[in-house]
């Protein structure tokens, strides 16, 4: 179904707002990645958005920029705290 991580979270009613709908223009789908962190690099839009987000850590990613695929095997994700 070509979903990304943000959409999966929303479809399970997790508290992910996804304000911009997945355009990497807000950071409300921020997640922290543990284990198998290097599935793919941040793209430019993701980097630029994380530069201005809150609670950013070195393992931060934007859920909307992570397509669900077998490359995520073994990864664990934690939802970042909501923006103030």
């Amino acid at each position, binding site marked *: 179904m070509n979903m990304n991580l943000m959409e999966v979270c929303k479809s399970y009613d997790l508290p992910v707002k996804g304000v911009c709908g997945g355009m990497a223009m*807000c950071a409300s789908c921020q997640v922290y990645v543990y284990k198998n962190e290097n599935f793919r690099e941040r793209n*430019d839009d993701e*980097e630029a958005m994380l530069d*201005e987000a*809150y609670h950013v850590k070195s393992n931060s990613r934007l859920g909307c920029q992570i397509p669900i695929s077998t490359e995520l095997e073994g990864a664990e994700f934690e939802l970042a705290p909501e923006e103030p």
Partner: protein
Amino acid sequence: MIKTNIVIIGAGPVGLFAVFEAGLMKLHCHLIDSIPQVGGQLSEIYPNKPIYDIPGYPTVLAGELVNKLMEQAAPFKPGFTLGERAETIDELPNGNFVVTTSQGTKHEAPVVMIAGGLGSFEPRKPIIKNLTDFEQNGVNYIVKDPDQFRGKEIVISGGGDSALDWAVYFAEKNCFVHLVHRSDRFRANKDSVAKAYELEEQDKLKLYTFAEVKQLGGKQHLEKVILETKGGTVSIETELWFPLFGLSPKLGPIADWGLEIEKNAIVVDTFDYQTNHSGIFAIGDVNTYPGKLKLILCGFHEATLAVQSAYKRINPDKKFNLKYTTVQGVQGFD
């Protein structure tokens, strides 16, 4: 007191289209929006992105769609209160409502339509301990009346279009600008970034990358900002700091109006998109009902049906006959 037939809270695409549908029924509208421009999320978040699911447009840029909606609504001469957030709705004994904004502007109408989208766009604020002490006292999230800052030393934080555009603007108007950003990549337009570097070479601007304002100092008013940079702590003496980190939508006062709220949206009756309060409607992304889709085209439909009920509330003794626009044309207000 501004008087109208319908007060529309939110001047995004759905609010704007409601003006048109109301106008066909000879109802005048006045729109309120917390940001200084119309277009809502389209203008604020993605003006240059193409939208592919507007009926009749295989593709249309979001900003272009807003322009078209303004053109469509123009014959019905809507009023606008922009840059002011709707704070309260009070009901008068005669059944009319008064909507009051953050600046105290009052609007009276028999019908209110809330087309608030995801909520009003509020500035994203940095996390600094004594920040609130300096808000309006040196720290500003929006630039108003830029001329008052001529010749001053200003600190601006941010990497997006707002931060870069204002940094360039002030540097070119006799201000010395310190532009602070957390990395060396900018979300802003490449031309604005190039211009900022150019101004740095002309000693009109200083760029601090991999830097962040961490502390504020001052007694009654802001006197300095303290940055953490790669090279250590830097203190800049200034009375003005503009943290321009963009805006994010918050439901805000809408949650306090006694309406039924579910998952940050207003519950409505799908007969006419009226809320639990007679005379108050909610259309577009701000509402919710079983099967709701947050699509602009759904909001357009909701606006059209809501306007029918609005007409009946305002003209209880008149019969309404739906006339196609191909038959009656568009008769604007004089």
